[in-house]
């Protein structure tokens, strides 16, 4: 018995020296810090719920977003309030269409505009900025002066002009928003790349003969990712806001499709008839999403770069 125990202890002692200890990566540290940030976690939960709403909403809705409820048309103010009984959970809009279905549809469009705009910014901005920053010199000057020039164009004016000229289309909005959103990202990424490029671990990689492409992939990009992720989460609400503003001007998505901005526009227009729900539902989603993104972005920044504060 005694000898048996002893060998066990010996085994344990041996294993203590051999079993690899799991390291704490910076990502895990960041996730841990993030999970302790209450506002950011709340934001994440709210965002999750809103995405869920946009995804399964069409199956829950009793009506299609373009169908008009003829029985209620014309008396939205008196009979169109939110009601479980007739299937209009969020009430109806001014034309007698189901507001729940329309809010679901608007959420889909707005979230899509936000994420696709941010995605374009991430891909183009990161590649462009990292290239300019890593190669430096003349390449860098030309690329960044181009960004400066593009940035000096009053782009909202430009976008509105495009929409007026070519007609309203969701594709044009995607292109317009995406084409502009990457500029700031490129600048941020370039700045970050410049500082990473001079780090000793890059020098160490060059000194041991690692190829430039591999250096960018293994050493530059992973160290850029934190900044890119934070900025991307803050870009999504910016994109949503831009789209909403365009929709608010009446130049956004085409009927019967809609977006939060368009719904808010409609709701604001009919507010004085006493149909407050037509404003409040889309506005609620809109504000909840923006705030959540800001909280999440802020939480990510704190979590990924604790030295900053």
């Amino acid at each position, binding site marked *: 018995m005694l000898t048996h125990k002893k060998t066990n202890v010996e085994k344990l002692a041996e294993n203590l020296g051999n079993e690899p200890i*799991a390291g704490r990566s910076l*990502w895990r540290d960041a996730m841990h810090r993030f999970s302790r940030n209450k506002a950011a976690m709340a934001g994440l939960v709210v965002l999750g719920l809103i995405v869920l709403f946009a995804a399964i909403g069409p199956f829950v809705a009793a009506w299609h977003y373009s169908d008009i409820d003829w029985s209620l048309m014309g008396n939205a103010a008196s009979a169109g309030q939110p009601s479980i009984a007739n299937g209009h959970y969020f009430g109806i809009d001014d034309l007698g269409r189901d507001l729940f279905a329309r809010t679901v549809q608007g959420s889909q469009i707005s979230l899509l505009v936000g994420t696709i705009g941010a995605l374009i910014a991430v891909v183009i901005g990161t590649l462009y900025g990292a290239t300019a920053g890593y190669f430096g010199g003349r390449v860098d000057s030309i690329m960044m002066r181009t960004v400066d020039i593009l940035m000096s164009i009053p782009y909202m004016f430009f976008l509105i002009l495009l929409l007026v000229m070519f007609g309203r289309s969701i594709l044009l909005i995607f292109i317009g928003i995406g084409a502009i959103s990457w500029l700031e990202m490129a600048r941020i990424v370039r700045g970050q790349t410049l500082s990473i490029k001079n780090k000793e671990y890059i020098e160490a990689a060059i000194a041991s003969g690692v190829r430039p492409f591999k250096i960018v992939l*293994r050493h530059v990009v*992973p160290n850029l990712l934190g900044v890119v992720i934070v900025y991307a989460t803050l870009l999504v609400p910016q994109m949503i806001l831009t789209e909403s503003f365009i929709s608010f001007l009446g130049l956004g998505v085409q009927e019967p499709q809609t977006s939060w901005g368009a719904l808010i526009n409609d709701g604001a227009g009919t507010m004085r008839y006493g149909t407050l729900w037509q404003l409040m539902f889309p506005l609620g989603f809109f504000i909840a999403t923006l705030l959540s993104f800001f909280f999440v972005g802020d939480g990510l920044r704190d979590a990924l770069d604790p030295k900053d504060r």
Partner: protein
Amino acid sequence: MTEHTQADTLASPTRTREKLLSVRDLKVYFDIFPKGAMPWTKPRKLKAVNGVSFDLYEGETLGVVGESGCGKSTLARAVIRMLPVEGGEVVWLGQDLAPLKDKAMRNHRKDIQMIFQDPLASLNPRMTIGQIIAEPLETHYPDLSRAEVKERVAEMMKTVGLLPNQINRYPHEFSGGQCQRIGIARALVLKPKMIICDEPVSALDVSIQAQVINLLMSLQKKMGLSLIFIAHDLSVVKHISTRIMVLYLGNVMEVADSADIYRQPRHPYTQALISAVPIPDPKIERNKEVILIEGDLPSPINPPSGCVFRTRCPRAEAKCAEQKPELIFAQGTHQVACHFHD
């Protein structure tokens, strides 16, 4: 060119070891643009390394000493071709590396490795220790199997005094001294012939410095390495160096065997540096005369004429401003660049 042949023929006859590295009249200049310069203004040249020559033999350690900003790191980076060379030769085993393209240079990189000043900053924070040490292996031997790489990495970790079970941890989980051991493991994993250590202990606690230096010395003996060991003060290089080269403002002031330079420094600058090294015996320490070097390091953009040290030299005369002293053999292998050397 004449200096070149002179140095070659005068190389010590007592040395029978193979000459690994031979640097001749190496020049590294940086373009400096004044603040707010227009794109078309001509840059000014900062002569960070201005005509340095030295040799490195198999198994020996060359200590490189000089004040901060005198061009030590620039010299190291130019030797391993991380910086473009303005002029001169870097002959590695008979081949000049200076004109090589990046691609051709990459093949030599497994023989020449480097250890950096800031141990933590020289390790990618997003990679595990295992990935960091394995990277040079994977770069130069892409055919090695995963198991082989892992085995070699673990073996290397043991060699430098790290527990192999730390393989999956990240740099920020280690102390400065341990990080430097990781850096050393990365440099050694390819079994190089030469390692350039750029102030490898300057960022470490004094108690850790000795450990790292001792580790480097024992590894050198075990693996037959040649070292270029850079430091900003003489006391650090004393134990480890076979020979010592003293730099000032991108120029070589003195090169001699380690014992020689301590016993009989011939250049006024070296003499001042050595007088500042503390002596363990308190009696001698109290009575010794410290030669103070007054004034600041001149700017390498606008170096003094003639001898670069003349603005701070206690022995400077008119000739020093007119004529640049050549690096000559004062006695045996002891080289010095001064018109009025001892």
